[in-house]
């Protein structure tokens, strides 16, 4: 069940990044997951959805991008700066 551990680490990395950038909310979290990463993608998706339902992530959706090899990487964050576009 290390997908939960991976999901928790993704949340920690995201929080650290959001704190550094001072953004209001995260809308999506993009993860690159390799076929040989030792991660069951459906399980990881389930864990991320459960964790992202809670603050400070409420409303964020996981986006899992399948890749070749053993890559396991936080690829991007789609964030809301909390201000209007002029």
């Amino acid at each position, binding site marked *: 069940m*290390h997908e939960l551990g991976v999901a928790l680490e993704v949340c920690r990395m995201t929080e650290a990044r959001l704190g550094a950038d001072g953004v209001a909310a995260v809308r999506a979290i*993009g993860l690159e997951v390799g076929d040989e990463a030792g991660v069951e993608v459906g399980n990881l998706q389930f864990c991320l959805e459960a964790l992202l339902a809670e603050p400070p992530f409420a409303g964020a959706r996981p986006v899992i991008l399948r890749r070749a090899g053993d890559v396991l990487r936080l690829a991007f964050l789609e*964030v809301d*700066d909390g201000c209007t576009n002029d």
Partner: protein
Amino acid sequence: MAVRTIDVRERVMARNDAIAAQVRERLRAAHVPAFNLVSSPGAGKTLLLERTLADLGRELSIAVVTGDVQTQNDADRLARHTDRLVQAVVTNGACHLDARQILTALDSIDLESTDLLFIENVGNLVCPAGWDLGEDAKIVLFSVTEGEDKPVKYPKLFQQASTVVFTKLDLLSHVPFRMEQAVRFARQVNPDLKILSTSALAPGGMDQWYQFVRAHARRPVLR
């Protein structure tokens, strides 16, 4: 609102790997070799270590960190064969050890008086491959009661390992295990694998393993 995308491209395992680097640095500073024993459940990791502690414990000071999903049964078994404290890590459901657990365990090990550290990982051929513990090498135990094709089914762990230790050789005549085929599969995924054969229950069945252990311990062995 202004929605934008932040390009991150950061490895999820980066923090574990940074802690593993700390473990490696501490072990190397103390000149303590460390081996991460991995296998499927029931391959004989604990029995191999029991025999090793019982037979080599007087000539080598061997430290052990052992991980289990639940219970400290393995640590209790090992503790009967050594005066040293066996570090038990109960993962509470996690399917592998991580570097943070090893770094914490090192705080309770007198590295100055340690010739060799064994880490007995949770029985699992998938997840331990993703988690560097700061060891010098992974050693895969491969029991003759398993299928010969384990290396090609779980290539990542066999690719990462330096050594395969076949176990339960005393059962070879009772099971349909083809050793040559298993070795062929192992070499197919990792041509550099060192291969040892053991039986923890047969006379002389641990000789190859003990030779390996003595060769890798910190101090020259005086006998």
